[in-house]
């Protein structure tokens, strides 16, 4: 029998809801931009296909927003219900971005409603497209603000703790904590990237089923291109994130890389497993790569897990989450670049059924990467809601 442990159950419940919500939130942030791109190209090229694409995506998008609103409301309430103590602290220090997030979402919801029901009210398509700008801005800003809250949980600042009481609260400093820039950039680029690949998957699926219409080809090509751009952006941001972790949360980076001993010129371990002596077996070893990731210097010293007290270490399973996330990211960058080249050079492979099937997988893979990244971020600081609190 499992012992009843409210902390465990609360964690599981919140975790489950969030794991579900994050998928909807991710495409909720990215898709408005994709709709805007499609409509813009449609107007510029005077091509009905792109306009139709924008319309269909909007229809689908509304459903995800509906689900996102409900899960989002549930999470907000759940946090207060299950973690009242944390919310009290959060209320004192970090409620400003939460408050702003609601505003941003409000803004998005209003204009989405207007956009959705005014397709035929404007003579000029461009005016209708203008309505999408507040939607996209609202969506991106709500991600921006909510990520700030998560960043704060990783590197809390903007207050002093004196005898258990919070003093000298500075809401702005709490918002712009050290984790904010890399976290926000990572969340935004991956949201755009994931949305592009999800939409590309849908188009690839139609082609895979043999619906050989030019409409699907245009959609696939456009989204693969957008996906490629944002994957490259994600790689660059990922590099910054590595350096951030090395400086502020070295134990998280070390756990992700199974980097046990502090050393100079540290190699990067991919996958593998631990044998009974705690040695890493069967991993792909890339010499010096970890030092480069952490400090842009192949011979730099990277702190290992041995430097931290045992009870503060993140669970070692995060290594797999991290590696899976990075591998999928790399794969998506590669496959979209390959597809782009193949189309440019008119290689026959793009007509191949198997290749189309591989493209269909990009969307689900991107989702898995998002979940892995989320698990990594959350398991990585499981011992407390906020680091060091």
């Amino acid at each position, binding site marked *: 029998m499992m012992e009843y442990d409210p902390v465990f159950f609360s964690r599981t419940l919140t975790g489950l809801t969030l794991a579900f919500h994050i998928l909807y939130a991710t495409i909720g942030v990215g898709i408005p931009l994709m709709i805007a791109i499609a409509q813009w190209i449609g107007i510029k090229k005077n091509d009905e296909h792109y306009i139709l694409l924008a319309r269909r995506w909007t229809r689908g998008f509304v459903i995800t927003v509906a689900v996102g609103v409900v899960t989002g409301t549930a999470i*907000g309430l*759940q946090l207060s219900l299950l973690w*009242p103590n944390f*919310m009290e602290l959060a209320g*004192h220090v970090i*409620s*400003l971005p*939460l408050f702003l997030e609601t505003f941003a979402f409000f803004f998005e*919801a209003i204009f989405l409603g*207007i956009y959705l029901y005014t397709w035929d009210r404007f003579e000029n398509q461009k005016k209708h497209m203008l309505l999408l700008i507040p939607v996209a801005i609202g969506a991106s800003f709500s991600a921006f603000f909510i990520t700030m809250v998560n960043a704060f949980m990783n590197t809390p600042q903007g207050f002093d703790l004196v005898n258990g009481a919070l003093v000298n609260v500075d809401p702005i400093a709490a918002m712009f904590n050290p984790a904010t820039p890399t976290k926000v950039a990572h969340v935004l680029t991956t949201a755009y990237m994931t949305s592009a690949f999800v939409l590309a998957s849908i188009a690839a699926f139609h082609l895979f089923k043999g619906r050989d219409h030019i409409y699907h080809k245009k959609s696939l090509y456009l989204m693969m291109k957008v996906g490629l751009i944002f994957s490259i952006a994600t790689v660059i941001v990922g590099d910054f994130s590595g350096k951030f972790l090395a400086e502020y949360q070295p134990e998280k980076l070390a756990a992700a890389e199974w980097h046990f001993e502090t050393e100079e010129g540290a190699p990067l371990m991919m996958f593998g497993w631990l044998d009974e002596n705690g040695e890493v077996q069967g991993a792909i070893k890339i010499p010096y790569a970890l030092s480069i990731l952490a400090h842009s210097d192949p011979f730099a010293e990277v702190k290992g897990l041995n430097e931290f007290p045992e009870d503060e270490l993140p669970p070692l399973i995060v290594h797999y989450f991290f590696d899976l996330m990075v591998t999928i990211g790399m794969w998506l960058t590669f496959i979209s670049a390959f597809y782009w080249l193949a189309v440019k050079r008119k290689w026959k492979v793009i007509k191949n059924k198997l290749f189309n099937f591989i493209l269909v997988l990009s969307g689900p893979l991107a989702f898995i990467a998002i979940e892995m990244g989320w698990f990594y971020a959350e398991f990585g600081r499981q011992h407390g809601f906020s680091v060091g609190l």
Partner: protein
Amino acid sequence: MDLAIIGVSVLWLFLFGYIIIASIDFGAGFFSAYSEIANTKHVLHHIIQRYLSPVWEVTNVFLVFFFVGMVGFFPSAAFYYGTVLLVPVSISIVLLAIRGSYYAFQTYGAKDSKFYVLLYGVAGLLIPASLSIVLTISEGGFVEMVGENPVLLYKELFFSPLTWSIVILSVVSVLYISATFLTAYADVAEDFKAREILRKYSLAWSGPTILSAGLIIWQLRQHNELHFANIMDIWWVFALSGVFFAITVLFLWRRKYYSLAFWSLIIQFGLAFFGYGVSHYPYLLYPYLTIYDGFTNDAMAQALIIAFIAGFALLVPSILLLARLFLFNRTYVKGEEQRRY
């Protein structure tokens, strides 16, 4: 004026906005479901859908706004209420999820399932009922401190007549607000068949609304004397609210000025709601928590108020735009323009 009062007024204003908008939404959903049984679907369905489609997303945000603001301005309230409300609000979450998924499916164009429509309609009445428990609890007497932690006394809560009168008020006023709004909406749309049915609903629910409101005041006298005395100090606010109630009913009865009837209803509820809020002052949770011991630090309060003003400056024009396009636009409301998907 101090920051705590500004904060609580802002939140109260948003809660009022939520109550009106959500009532229209919940009630419309219920009438829409009811029309399936009462065989009036062909008359009511069109007008209700036309209103609901573009605005339903906005409704939930008001609620989120209220509790995010609550956590921001009054972190201690988040602690007290968060601990106590685990069960009632979890029920509300499930109900909100049912309604949300209905919207998702409906937009997707999946086949209409009668059962699902009914579920959606009933959920719309149960949500206000379950959320109204919060107001009951705030009156005191249902929470006990065990050590540092507040604990909800379920038995007392369940068997208290006050609980049930507040539940009844929340349900009947949802139906009343919604029916009155939709009557005015149908009138603008010149859909006279729908208007006649909705006007009947509106008149039918007006009596129960005012009766249950009176019942609550009477019960507060036994339950929370201080609050009752405060209400009596500003009795004229409630009397004025009653006058506006009479105006609404009169207009509806004589089939005149339907839009004005709805505005008068807003004033009626506004007066009663703010009268209730003022007489509740200074307690957030009687007798444990006032707005002053629960208030956040000054730096955060100022930041929140600045953010609020900036945000409001963006929101008001956008809400007006939404209203202009879908509520006060005769061609849209009548459904004359072409729509293709």
